C-alpha cells in the first residue's frame, strides 16, 4: 500500500551553471549525468537483479500468447475433477486449474499483461497530472497555488480503496476506470514533491536569466524547469508502478477493479479467496507473483532514488 515515503523523495537541485551553457554543451552535460546515474544504479546489485526480474515479467507479458499453454479464459471439461474441484499440477496443466477449470499458468501469464498495463498506464497518468499541477502551482503561485494545494490536501483525506468502491458503484468496473481511479488517488504525492522542487528551482539564476531575456513562462517551465524534474519523476514512476499494481489487485479483490473473467493477478486472488481452504495454491501463485513484481519495482525505485540523490 502506498505510504508517505514518496513525499519524501528528496528535491534534487540542479548543478550550478547549467543554465549558462549553450544547447550542445547542455546536452552533453545532461548525457554525462545520465551515464553517471546509470553507473551508480548498476553498482547496486540487488536493484539490478530486481530490474532483471522486471524485464523477465515484461517479456513474459509481451510473449504471453506464445508462452501460455492454453487459452486463459477457456473452461476445460477436463480441468475439473468429477465432483467439480480444480486440478493440481498435471503435465497438461503445469500449475493446475482454477475453480472454473481454467489453466492457472496461462491466466498468470495473461494476468501479467493486465497488471503491468494497468500499473504502467496508471503511473503515466499519475505522473503527468502530478507534474503538471505541481509545476503550475509552484511556478505561478497565487490562486492557482491555493486551489491546487488545497485540492491535494482534500484528496489526501480520501481513502483510496473507498474512492475506488464509490467509482465502481457508479461506473461499470473496467480496466479504464481502474486506471483512472488509481491516478485520481495517487497524483497528489507527485504533485507535492514537484511543487516544492519548483518553488526552489524558480528562484535559481538561470530562470531569472531566461526571464530577463524575455522567455515566456510556459517555455521556462518546459525547457528550463521540467528537465530538472525528470530524475525524480523517473524514481517516482518506478515506485509508482509497483504501488499501482498493488492497488489494481486490491480493487479487483473487492470486485471494484478489473472485472471477471479477465485475468489479472488481483482478480485471480479474488476468485480463489472463497476456495482457500480446499486449495490454497489458487491464492498462493498469483499472490507470490504479485509480491515478487511489486517488491522488484519498489527496490529498483529505491535504487534509482539513491542513484539520483548521490548526484
Amino acid at each position, binding site marked *: 500500500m502506498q505510504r508517505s515515503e514518496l513525499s519524501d523523495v528528496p528535491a534534487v537541485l540542479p548543478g550550478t551553471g547549467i543554465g549558462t551553457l549553450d544547447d550542445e554543451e547542455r546536452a552533453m552535460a545532461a548525457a554525462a549525468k545520465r551515464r553517471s546515474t546509470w553507473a551508480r544504479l548498476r553498482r547496486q546489485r540487488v536493484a539490478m537483479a530486481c530490474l532483471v526480474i522486471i524485464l523477465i515479467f515484461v517479456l513474459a507479458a509481451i510473449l504471453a500468447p506464445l508462452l501460455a499453454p492454453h487459452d486463459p479464459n477457456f473452461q476445460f471439461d477436463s480441468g475439473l475433477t468429477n465432483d467439480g474441484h480444480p486440478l493440481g499440477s498435471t503435465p497438461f496443466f503445469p500449475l493446475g486449474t482454477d475453480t472454473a477449470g481454467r489453466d492457472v499458468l496461462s491466466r498468470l501469464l495473461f494476468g501479467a499483461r493486465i497488471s503491468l498495463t494497468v500499473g504502467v498506464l496508471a503511473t503515466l497518468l499519475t505522473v503527468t497530472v502530478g507534474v503538471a499541477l505541481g509545476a503550475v502551482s509552484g511556478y505561478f503561485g497565487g490562486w492557482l497555488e491555493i486551489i491546487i494545494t488545497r485540492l491535494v490536501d482534500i484528496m489526501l483525506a480520501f481513502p483510496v480503496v473507498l474512492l475506488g468502491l464509490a467509482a465502481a458503484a*457508479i461506473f461499470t468496473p473496467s480496466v479504464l476506470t481502474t486506471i483512472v481511479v488509481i491516478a485520481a488517488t495517487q497524483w497528489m504525492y507527485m504533485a507535492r514533491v514537484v511543487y516544492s522542487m519548483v518553488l526552489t528551482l524558480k528562484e535559481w539564476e538561470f530562470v531569472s536569466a531566461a526571464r530577463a531575456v524575455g522567455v515566456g513562462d510556459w517555455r521556462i517551465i518546459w525547457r528550463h524547469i521540467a528537465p530538472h524534474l525528470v530524475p525524480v519523476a523517473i524514481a517516482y514512476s518506478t515506485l509508482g508502478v509497483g504501488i499501482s499494481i498493488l492497488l489494481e489487485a486490491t480493487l479487483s479483490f*473487492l470486485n471494484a477493479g478489473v472485472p471477471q473473467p479477465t485475468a489479472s493477478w488481483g482478480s485471480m486472488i479474488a476468485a480463489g479467496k472463497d476456495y482457500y481452504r480446499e486449495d490454497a495454491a489458487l*491464492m498462493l501463485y498469483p499472490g507470490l507473483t504479485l509480491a515478487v513484481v511489486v*517488491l522488484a519495482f519498489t527496490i529498483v525505485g529505491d535504487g534509482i532514488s539513491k542513484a539520483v540523490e548521490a548526484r
Partner: protein
Amino acid sequence: MLSYLVRRLGWVLLVLLGVSIITFTLVSLIPGDVAIFYAGPHASAQVIAETRHSLGLDQPKPIQFFHYLAKTLHGDLGQSATLDEPVWNALLERVPATAALAVAVIITEMVVMFIFGIVSSLYPDSLIDRAVAGFAAMGVSLPGFWVGIMLLYFIGYKLSWLPLGGYGDPWIVYLILPAATQGVPGGFWYARILKASLVGTLHQDYVRTARSKGLAQRLVVIRHALPNAIIPVLTIAAMDLGQLFGGIVVVEAVFSWPGIGLMAYQALQALDVPLVIGTVLFTALCIALLNILADVLRVLVDPRVRLA
C-alpha cells in the same frame, strides 16, 4: 493554541466541502436516470419517484448541490437502498467495530515500531537491522488482503489457533488476526522511519552531552533521543491516516469484521450507491478530524510547535 484549533476546524469544514463537491460530482456522473440508480436495483416505480423527489433531481444542478450540502451538514446522508434504514444510522452502528479494529492496528503498529525501531538503531547494520529493513520492504509490497487470507489459511484453518474471521465471543480473539494483518507490516514500516529519525537525533549535541555524562547507550536512546525522534514519525503517521482506513476496509472484507469497511464492500456488491457514497463522505470527515487530533498530540509532545 485556541486560535490554532479554530483555524484547524475551519480546515475540516473546507475538507468536508471539498469532499462533498467530489462525491456530488461522482453522483452527477452516473449514466442514465440517477433516481433509478440511487433507489437500488430492485426498487419499485413509486420508490424511484420518491427518490427523485427527495434528491431534488427536477431542480438545476447548483440548487441540487446546495440541497445536498445542507442535508450532508445535517448528517442526512440519504436512505440505504438495501438496509431499510438511513445511511447515517447504518454507519453509527458499524463505527464501534471499525474503531476497535483501528485502535488494535495502531497499538500493534506502535509495539512493533518501538521494539524494532529502537533495536535496529542500537545495532545499525546488524542482522536484525537488515531483517527489519527486509520486513518493511515486504510489508509495503505484499498485498494486505493476500497476507490476511494466508494467515487465515495457516493460523485459522490449518492450525485452528484462531477463528476464521467474523465476530463473536470473546471478541478480542476475533480481533487478533485482522489487527496483525495490518499492524505488523505497518509496524515494520514505521520502525524503519523511527530508526532513521533516531540515527539522525543521535548526532545532536544534547545526545552527546547525555552520553558524555556516562549514560548507557540504551538509556541515551530511550530517554534522550526517542522523545525528539518520535515527532517526525507522528507527522508521517498522521499523513498516512487515509491509507490506514483504506487498509482497514480491505482487512474487514477479508475477515468479515463487521465495521463500516465490510458494510461498504457489501453495499458495492448490492449496488447500494447511497450507502457507498455515504461511507466515503463519513470516512473522509473522520480522517480530517483525526488529523486535528494528531496535530494536538504533536503540540503536546513537541512544545516547539506552539511557537509556530
